[in-house]
């Protein structure tokens, strides 16, 4: 997180891409609807912000507190070398509860793999993290999509965590042995350089 925030905005590809997209779309609005279209877009932006601000504020506080309660290193130790149903369940729960962006998620997953966690546990962690996180659901999905759509999408996809836990290790074992070994070697380096 700190590492990410040190990057100046003019070197941040996500910010530059977003800035470019916003400029492009705003120019299109100006061309098609004139200045009144841009004003309408500005008002809608403020309305969106007003709707989401309370949930966003609380969500950021919750994310900070969860990081204190479940530090990445501790989560890693919990999952450790458990290549069992318990390991999968802890992996999925850790994925659903862990806050923060990819800069939090991938170092945790890499530390887990380097620490000897089974591919199934890591698949459970990443799948839960991708499919459903408490923070993303409450802070973003419910306010912006509405409860019916947020719930429908969650119910439609939550069982896919189990599919990932079963299938990812099978496909992983089909990968060439050298790729598996180099993956583990690479993970060791990433983890060392990140910590």
């Amino acid at each position, binding site marked *: 997180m700190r590492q990410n925030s040190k990057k100046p905005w003019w070197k941040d590809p996500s910010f530059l891409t977003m800035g470019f997209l916003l400029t492009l779309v705003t120019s299109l609005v100006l061309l098609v609807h004139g200045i009144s279209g841009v004003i309408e877009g500005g008002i809608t932006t403020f309305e969106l*912000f007003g709707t989401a601000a309370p949930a966003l504020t*609380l969500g950021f506080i919750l994310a900070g507190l969860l990081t204190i309660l479940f530090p990445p290193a501790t989560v890693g130790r919990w999952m450790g070398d458990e290549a069992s149903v318990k390991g999968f369940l802890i992996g999925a729960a850790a994925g659903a509860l862990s806050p923060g962006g990819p800069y939090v998620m991938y170092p945790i997953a890499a530390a887990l793999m380097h620490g000897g966690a089974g591919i199934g546990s890591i698949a459970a962690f990443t799948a839960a993290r991708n499919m459903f996180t408490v923070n993303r659901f409450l802070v973003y999905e419910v306010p*912006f999509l509405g409860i019916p759509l947020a719930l429908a999408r969650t119910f439609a996809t939550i069982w896919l965590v189990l599919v990932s836990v079963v299938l990812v290790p099978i496909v992983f074992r089909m990968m060439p042995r050298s790729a598996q070994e180099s*993956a583990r070697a690479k993970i060791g380096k990433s983890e060392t350089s990140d910590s």
Partner: protein
Amino acid sequence: MSTYLLAVLVLLASVFVLQRHGFSGIREGVITSALLLKTVGKMLILGMALSAMTQVILPEEIITKWMGNESGLTGILIGTVVGVLIPGGPYVVIPLAGSVFLSGAGVGPVAAFITAWNTIPITRTVMWEWPFLGGAFTWSRMIVNLPFPFVAGFLSPPIFNLIK
């Protein structure tokens, strides 16, 4: 409702942090939150502005035609492709999905869009997953996850109708 639920969760988490780490834990938690806000704040504002402008520029009839409830596989496919390609975090993608939904997109395409962004995004995979977890795991996960946006696209509408 989510705001009240979040408030309860914040309260619970604060009690646990206080119990385990005392006031220094709370202070550290607040500092972490502020750093997180500092990191994603500007992207969040850009994301909301982008979704608002998209709502203004994209005519409802076009969205309804290509991504509406009747668009079937085409809508789900469009949602999936956009989800795979779009960069940024939930602060960009979810507001955008919400505005496209409000403009007439169907439940299936929107669910496919969000699920594709969650499971098979190009930017996050290349920038984060590959360097940290290596090619063998990344490829295995991507191959398994490839059909997930379509599953979401087809299963979400009937569940949505039940809940609604």
